[in-house]
């Protein structure tokens, strides 16, 4: 189950962060997202020299904690998407698919002429789309 997703701008400013848990642990999840930004920076500054990963937007597993796994995705405009999940055996392909649809939703949200680039995403449509994507996460492989 996905417990938290976040969009972080290129200056590490939060653009959108949403947790999907019943309990009141938003702060803890935000903390996890915050920590993961350092890992993203580290990956970006020390890229592997091999060719195909050079332009890869999907950063893979950033770090595992006891209860969560954190995945990252970096767009070419240096906007980061962070995904926190409680599933311990997640298929890479599922995560990739998730980020692909998430990216599409993000692109549509920033295409709204009333969205100011670099400001928080307040669109309700985006929020709805994200929760749909989150709900459908992993269903294709489980079914």
């Amino acid at each position, binding site marked *: 189950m996905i417990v938290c997703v976040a969009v972080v701008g290129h200056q590490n400013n939060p653009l959108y962060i949403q947790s999907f848990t019943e309990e009141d642990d938003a702060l803890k999840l935000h903390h996890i997202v915050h920590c993961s930004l350092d890992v993203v920076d580290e990956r970006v500054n020390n890229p592997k020299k091999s060719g195909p990963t050079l332009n890869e937007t999907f950063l893979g597993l950033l770090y595992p904690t006891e209860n969560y796994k954190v995945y990252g995705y970096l767009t070419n405009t240096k906007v980061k998407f962070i995904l926190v999940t409680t599933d311990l055996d997640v298929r890479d392909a599922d995560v990739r698919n998730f980020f692909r649809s998430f990216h599409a939703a993000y692109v549509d*949200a920033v295409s709204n*002429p009333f969205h100011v680039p670099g400001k928080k995403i307040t669109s309700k449509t985006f929020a709805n789309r994200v929760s749909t994507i989150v709900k459908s996460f992993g269903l294709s492989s489980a079914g």
Partner: protein
Amino acid sequence: MAPADPRSGDAIFANVERVNAELFTLTYGATVRQLLTDLEEVEEVNKQLDQMGYNIGIRLIDEFLAKSNVARCVDFKETAEMIAKVGFKMFLGVTATVTNWDANDTCCSIMLEDNPLVDFVELPDTCQGLYYCNILSGVIRGALEMVSMKTEVTWLRDVLRGDDAYEMQVKLLKQVPEEYPYKDDE
């Protein structure tokens, strides 16, 4: 030479030059956004969009008549159908339907199923009074004025404001007889 047959909106749409839909949508979005910044008042923006549409309409009608080869419409009913079926198809690539005629056939609604102007758009709370597509009503008003019909075009429903469709009301105010501004002795 006999006049060419009227062409359907689809046929014209297939032949005219087109731009990428997203470029078009984003350009219009940027225009509206800039107007909001410049004019500050939502009411003023509505007026300005309508005026811009009007200016487009009074020019666009000539292109419409030249490319579509339509014959003179006999009544307002036919005119409205022509706008919906040929005009919208030709310039926006969408079809509109005409409904809700009043008893005198002077007032009707043009319903848009699909509206390329509003992709991605979500009105923020501060702009709830904005008629985002007000340019379209201006275009129709301007175009009809050039073919001697004074009309009033208002938006009745707008998906951006929470309705379930786009509906414009077109009301024929009066038919202006064609006037020749020249005097005989000049």
